[in-house]
């Protein structure tokens, strides 16, 4: 996983999977890296091939802690069609801004 900060924007990329194996460490690492003056958090899911409910839970936890009410925009970038399907199945696509290039 790569974390890159560019001014008030933070980008996270190279996430091969978000599952019960790594979701807790993913969430903790991202939360620890978030600076106080951030206004946009981009999570690049283009290389994420597998997501399960634990991974969705980690994303939602980030949404709750950073996105909603704290003025930080959380965007999911280029999710694979299967990941998009899971987001829609769980209706979590309504919470995130999903952006495609």
């Amino acid at each position, binding site marked *: 996983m790569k974390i890159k900060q560019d001014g008030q924007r933070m980008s996270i990329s190279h996430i091969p999977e978000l599952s019960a194996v790594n979701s807790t460490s993913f969430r903790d690492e991202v939360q620890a890296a978030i600076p106080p003056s951030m206004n946009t958090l981009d999570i690049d899911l283009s290389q994420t091939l597998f997501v399960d*409910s634990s991974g969705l839970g980690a994303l939602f936890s980030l949404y709750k802690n950073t996105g909603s009410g704290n003025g930080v925009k959380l965007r999911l970038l280029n999710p694979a*069609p299967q990941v*998009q*399907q899971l987001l*829609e*199945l*769980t*209706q979590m696509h309504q919470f995130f801004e999903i952006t495609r290039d």
Partner: protein
Amino acid sequence: MKTLLICPAHRPAVARLAKACPLVLVPILGKCLVEYWLEYLVLRGDHEVRIIAIDRAEQVRALVGDGSRWGMRVEVIAEVNESDPVEIRAHRDGHPVSPATPPAPDDVVLMDHLPGLSGFPLFDSYEAWFHALQAWIPQACTPDRIGRREISPGIFVGLHSRISPAAQLNAPCWIGDNVFVGPDAVIGPGAILEDRAFIECGAHITRSVVGPETFVGELTLIDQSLASGNLLINWKNRSCLDVPDEFLLCSLGVRQPPPRARSWVRSPLMSLRELIPSQQE
């Protein structure tokens, strides 16, 4: 009259549908394609049908048997390659044709559509499959389906289905036999729930097909999809997902048998048998 029914072989556009069984045996509103065709032929007056099966012919044979269920004689022949109806007809024309043979195109039928719905090919794509099933809903409510009723225009419900009064049903929709629909679920428009599907409370199912014995979890959204077991196919963009979490989507049909209780009599006997060396040793 002798009619030839040809089962479609491999269809890459809908390959995931044929994973568990051949395409002609995939459930369509409670029955399968080959059953619909045999019913159609028997109503037309045919008494003798030959089915050419390429993919898993033994499963087709196990379902249709000898055809006595329909009051006709049915023979299933396994072949390696899919035959072209035009070629079969041309080959047949070189030989003496029985006067009882029905005229083309009804004499040789490639089962790639439902009877009378040749404008809705089933296997061109997942989207085509979905639209063909939608078109079939008004015709599928045949008198032989005991207990099935149209509870309001365009909403068909099968026998022993339990639908919460708090659920919302929007036409057109088809609910099979022994289906459970929980409170606050939204079914339709364009929803097909096959037999023994279990829809948890708050689930939304629109423009989709839920396969038999499929559990759909609480507050899930299934739109423009074909769901069967834990397989979710988006018919619009052809994306396929094996849902990893059973509380979201899973099959109710595949269950591990419970461990057999050890009888207090059988257990010592079995242990004793294991101790005694066999005569062959």
